[in-house]
């Protein structure tokens, strides 16, 4: 199963701690820890058999010792899902997953992929080095040493900050923990933004989700650090279905980061997450994602199918801002959206989507204006390379009572080759004549003149493309927290290496 690592990471402090800590010391610590926590337990039996039916759902729920209401929710969702059909309106082509050939639950600890660091694919090591991921982090991400991430992330890192958060009344924990410790909160808000019946993948997620993160910021509290969760898909043949719920109570603020990674595998793997954001009156949620799930190889083999439902709801004077930098996955189907229910609420969507080789992305947003004086901004930068297809799909909906609603959308596409495709599908539904909606769109090919100019100054092509593309995406990258922006920039450069044609 997927490992979900929830940790409140104050990056600068984290780095400080790590640098005073040698690898030897870490290894020693781990030996002790491993012993102490008894990681040698055989947990093979914790894996559910492949396939999806009511028994599997009961099994998941029992494993997680869930309350009865949650099991009933799951079963209801499953019943709904069985009646639904997989949507095919997106501008993507792929072989539909066989939902009976997926493992829906597998315990975290036995999922080693590599026996030792030496076995890890050199290409992957190289990529991680370029990303500036430390050796330990690299080992953790390739799954060489599960104990490490367990210890490092759940105990040494997360817990230390958890106490700081706790003093402020902030709850930040795994979804499973939240179900056990804060069942009323979970029950109240789960499904309140993305109902089970919303769509095929949301229904599936509601039936089989395994874990995810939960976050609650109490009234008037400004969360003093970025909260971050790192998701990864580990074991072959498993699906990943996370559930994330962020609730910002009145007048609170939180910035939430989501990172993703997945090892290379030559089969397609399904990922169908649901993220719900609730921003109450005068609250603000900033949700940033850097997604680099495995995109498949140069010939389009393997890679993640990423079918995600992300939506937030805004109370009066509140604000939700989605920022995403997407470079991974074989197929992406994702539309982080805002329901601007409260008067004067604000929704923002800043997106960079990069596709290379045979990747396909159909991504965008929905801004649903219900309240008066609601405002939304959409900035989308699609970059296509290789033989990939990149589509923007956005809906701006102004309801009858949304007097003086405003929307500004800008959708830019950059083509790196003659074989790739960029498509824009903007939908506007306006039922209030006082609304002001502006839409701008451009498509351009990466400039040979720009590249030549860089080369002439001694900047090699790879770096030149990195510079030009990062410049092109600046408006979006500027929205990311510092540490994340640096990682995102490197990621953009790496995912477009050798892609001009």
């Amino acid at each position, binding site marked *: 199963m997927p490992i979900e690592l929830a940790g409140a990471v104050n990056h600068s402090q984290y780095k400080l701690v790590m640098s005073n800590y040698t690898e030897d010391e870490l290894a020693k610590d781990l030996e002790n820890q491993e012993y102490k926590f008894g990681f040698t337990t055989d947990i093979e039996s914790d894996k559910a058999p492949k396939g999806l039916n009511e028994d599997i759902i009961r099994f998941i729920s029992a494993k997680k010792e869930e309350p009865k209401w949650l099991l009933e929710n799951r079963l209801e969702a499953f019943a709904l899902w069985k009646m639904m059909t997989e949507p095919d309106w997106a501008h993507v082509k792929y072989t539909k997953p066989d939902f009976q050939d997926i493992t829906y639950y597998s315990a975290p600890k036995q999922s080693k992929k590599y026996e030792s660091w030496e076995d890890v694919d050199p290409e992957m090591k190289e990529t991680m080095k370029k990303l500036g991921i430390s050796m330990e982090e690299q080992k953790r991400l390739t799954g060489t040493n599960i104990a490490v991430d367990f210890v490092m992330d759940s105990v040494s890192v997360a817990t230390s900050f958890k106490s700081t958060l706790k003093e402020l009344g902030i709850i930040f924990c795994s979804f499973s923990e939240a179900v056990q410790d804060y069942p009323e909160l979970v029950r109240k808000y789960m499904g309140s933004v993305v109902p089970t019946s919303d769509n095929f993948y949301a229904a599936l997620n509601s039936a089989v989700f395994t874990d995810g993160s939960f976050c609650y910021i109490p009234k008037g509290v400004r969360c003093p650090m970025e909260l971050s969760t790192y998701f990864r898909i580990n074991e072959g043949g498993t699906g990943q279905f996370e559930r994330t719920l962020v609730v910002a109570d009145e007048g609170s603020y939180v910035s939430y980061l989501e990172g993703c990674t997945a090892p290379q595998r030559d089969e397609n793997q399904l990922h169908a997450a649901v993220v719900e954001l609730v921003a109450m009156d005068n609250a603000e949620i900033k949700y940033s994602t850097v997604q680099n799930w495995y995109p498949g190889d140069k010939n389009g083999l393997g890679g993640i199918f990423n079918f995600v439902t992300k939506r937030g709801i805004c109370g009066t004077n509140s604000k939700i801002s989605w920022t995403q930098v997407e470079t991974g996955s074989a197929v992406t189907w994702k539309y982080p959206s805002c329901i601007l229910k409260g008067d004067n609420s604000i929704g923002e969507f800043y997106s960079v989507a990069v596709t290379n080789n045979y990747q396909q992305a159909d991504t965008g947003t929905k801004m649903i204006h219900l309240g008066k004086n609601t405002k939304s901004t959409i900035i989308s930068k699609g970059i296509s390379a290789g033989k990939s297809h990149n589509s923007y799909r956005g809906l701006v909906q102004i309801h009858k009572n949304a007097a003086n609603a405003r929307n500004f959308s800008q959708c830019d596409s950059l083509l790196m080759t003659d074989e790739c495709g960029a498509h824009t599908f903007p939908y506007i539904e306006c039922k209030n004549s006082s609304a002001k909606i502006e839409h701008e769109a451009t498509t351009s090919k990466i400039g040979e003149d*720009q590249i*030549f100019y860089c080369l*002439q100054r*001694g900047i090699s092509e790879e770096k030149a493309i990195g*510079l*030009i593309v*990062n*410049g*092109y995406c600046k408006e979006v990258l500027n929205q990311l927290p510092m540490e994340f922006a640096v990682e995102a920039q490197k990621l953009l450069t790496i995912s477009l290496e050798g892609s001009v044609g």
Partner: protein
Amino acid sequence: MITINDLHAKIEDKEILKGLSLEVKAGEVHAIMGPNGAGKSTLASVLAGREDYEVTAGSVSFVGEDLLELSTEERAWAGLFLAFQYPVEIPGVSNINFLRTAINETREKKDLDPISAKDFMAMVREKSALVELDAKLASRSVNEGFSGGEKKRNEIFQMAMLAPKLSILDETDSGLDIDALRIVASGVNKLKNENNATIIITHYQRLLDYIVPDFVHVLFDGKIVKTGGKELAIELEEKGYDWIKEEIAQ
């Protein structure tokens, strides 16, 4: 510094350079003049290594290396600089970031450590003053929203930052008012020393009032057809290019 011998180059099957020869030594300033369409910018592009052009014959030796064997960026690392006739805009990329990337990559090739932020900023201040480039422009996106004159000054600023061995200035004077012309010329003069060389492409002799060339060449129909001193530039200014055409026809 550079020896060009019987250079032929074509673009899309159209021969533009038709046997061009030129030698420039360290410490020299050469001016290349000629009517529109003569092939001046083509020469600059071919020397800089633009891929659209195909060299069909001839040789070029630059600081002892076979220039035509080097890639565009290798030529830059070897010390060749082109101030573009039409500098391009790179939105979202600050001038400073652009130059730092260029300088550090060049240093890396010479096994030097990256320049420190402090040294780099001191250099930016010093060199931008040289061409009276507003410090604000140095941190703006490369050429984005720059006026024509600012773009040209920015080219010379970049030249100052990169300290090349051979600079080719392609019509750097065009579109400049007299003050800007003076500033650019004085920048070029200050950068001049016995170890570097400059090729100034222009079709007005105006600039040559400020930067005095050692040689003036006339490029016509893909060849250097006449070479002289500064007085040749003045003669061209007075009489135009027709008399040259006639001379060749004879």
